[in-house]
């Protein structure tokens, strides 16, 4: 396959997100402008100007009309996808790290980093149908985990919130009462910071990637560990194919160590694993730095990766990919 290279960002990529139909790709980077691309040919459709810091995460509503972004400038912003206009700004006292729309797009969960004396927190906000009525009030605020919460997503039927972060513990919270329901077992869980979390297409299970050089597959309801994928490098990004039983792990050594080591030792590949057999299928090379973001097109026929090198690469699979046998 010949990947499409998109050089729209001047700083390392942080997050990639496809919309539901898989025709649009949103990219977030440490420069201040999230960008919208056509997912098939990589043409740039627009940029969302307004943030004043690194943009860590984004999510798009199911109807592809609203975009929410979380940024280090201590805000999360709601955008009109089509025009790039800012609809609303949620202000926080610390950098916003992750955002996730609930099923139905009525609620959003936003996590904020520990900052100055503040501890990290998970905020649930209501999204108004009409953006002029939008308020910044929190429906629920959860506190407790130590360190940064790198990802928080909605569990099945919006009943729970799944969070993971620097303390390497995955937690499931009740999204109504804010009670801590489950905590992953320290014995079987990750040993180091969890960097990424990606839900399966149906939400029944999710995948976490960690700096302990592994990715783990969990059941969304019971939080039982299903599978573990071991690799040679810290994992920065994970995603799952919605079509085949494949998971993709992206990573590489710390950005700070890149210049001091041989490029061959870097392992800046997106590694494909068989979801069930936990075995490596193959690697896709190309980035000149660690992979920070991965996303699978909802049709399962292409995936994109974003790297520390500032490039987004869209890979449309060759036909033989769909016949790979182990």
């Amino acid at each position, binding site marked *: 396959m010949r990947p499409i290279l998109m050089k729209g960002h001047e700083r390392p990529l942080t997050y990639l997100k496809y919309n539901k139909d898989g025709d649009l790709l949103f990219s977030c980077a440490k420069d201040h*402008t999230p960008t919208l691309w056509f997912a098939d040919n990589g043409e740039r459709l627009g940029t969302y100007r307004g943030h004043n810091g690194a943009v860590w995460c984004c999510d798009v509503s199911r109807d592809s009309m609203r975009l929410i972004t979380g940024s280090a400038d201590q805000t999360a912003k709601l955008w009109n996808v089509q025009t790039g206009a800012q609809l609303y700004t949620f202000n926080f006292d610390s950098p916003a790290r992750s955002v996730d729309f609930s099923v139905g797009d009525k609620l959003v969960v936003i996590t904020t980093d520990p900052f100055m004396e503040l501890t990290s927190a998970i905020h649930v906000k209501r999204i108004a149908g009409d953006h002029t009525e939008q308020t910044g009030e929190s429906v629920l605020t959860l506190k407790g985990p130590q360190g940064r919460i790198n990802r928080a997503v909605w569990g099945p039927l919006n009943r729970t919130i799944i969070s993971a972060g620097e303390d390497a513990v995955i937690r499931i919270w009740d999204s109504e009462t804010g009670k801590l329901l489950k905590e992953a077992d320290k014995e079987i869980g990750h040993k180091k910071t969890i960097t990424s979390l990606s839900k399966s297409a149906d939400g029944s299970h999710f995948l976490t990637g960690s700096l302990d050089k592994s990715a783990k597959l969990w059941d969304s309801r019971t939080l039982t560990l299903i599978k573990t994928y071991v690799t040679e490098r810290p994992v920065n990004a994970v995603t799952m194919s919605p079509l085949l039983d494949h998971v993709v792990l992206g990573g590489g050594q710390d950005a700070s160590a890149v210049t001091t080591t041989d490029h061959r030792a870097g392992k800046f590949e997106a590694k494909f694993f068989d979801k069930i057999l936990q075995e490596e299928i193959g690697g896709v090379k190309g980035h000149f730095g660690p992979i920070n973001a991965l996303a699978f097109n909802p049709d399962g026929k292409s995936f994109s990766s974003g790297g520390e090198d500032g490039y987004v690469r869209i890979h449309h699979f060759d036909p033989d990919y769909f016949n790979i*046998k182990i």
Partner: protein
Amino acid sequence: MSVSMQTQPKIRWGELEEDDGEDLDFLLPPKQVIGPDDNGIKRVIEYKFNDDGNKVKITTTTRIRKLANARLSKRALERRNWAKFGDAVREDVGSRLTMVSTEEILIERPRAPGSKPEETKVAGDPLAQLGKGGAVLMVCRTCGKKGDHWTSRCPYKDLAASSEGFSEKPATSDAATAAAGAGKGAYVPPGMRAGAERTGTDMRRRNDENSVRVTNLSEDTREPDLLELFRTFGSVSRVYVAVDQKTGMSRGFGFVNFVNKDDAQRAINKLNGYGYDNLILRVEWATPRTN
């Protein structure tokens, strides 16, 4: 890309400064997009004024490749025609934000497709294989461990950075020894073998021990001259003259390594204070002797 010029009716430069470009833009023919035709060739013709006030026609020819025939929903087709916004509005044809990789990227399989499932088991669960007889064959070339993992899966692979740096060179000797002593398996350098000191200082110390420093050399002295001078005392393993990297001139000192210590001592006794090329040489042990 072809560029053709037409001269404009004369414009005074003073005027040009003020209503630069934008006001004159209405004089230009509109942007034309032709194609893509059957071969996927798309032409975009644009007109603009260059710095000299001349009208320039810019034709950009691109080939459009059809990607996987994706079925788009009605909404997606609508989005196809959305107007650009943000920084994308000012984007001109020339800016190459999106490129197709010139390199064909393949999914690199960790092993050949269609290899035996037994082999799969080895890779997936090396411990299970340990009890079987075949496990002895599995020797890691990086860390020398037997039956634990294959070389490609060695957990210490990255630690052995020094050997990696030379990987191009020993590759041939590697193959040669492997062919010669097939029973022994892959070549392991003596320093890496079990029981050997892993530090690699051995060799260096041997060199240092018989290393002789020669100072007060004339600038014209080159390594062959030095070799000729010292060869008479015994076999020389290395001659080195320090050369200034910028000027290429000799810096006036060098080192000579002897195979035998006695030869080195004799050379020192004989040549220290020896007149060579109008200068009096100073010859001594390169490192202060401890014993």
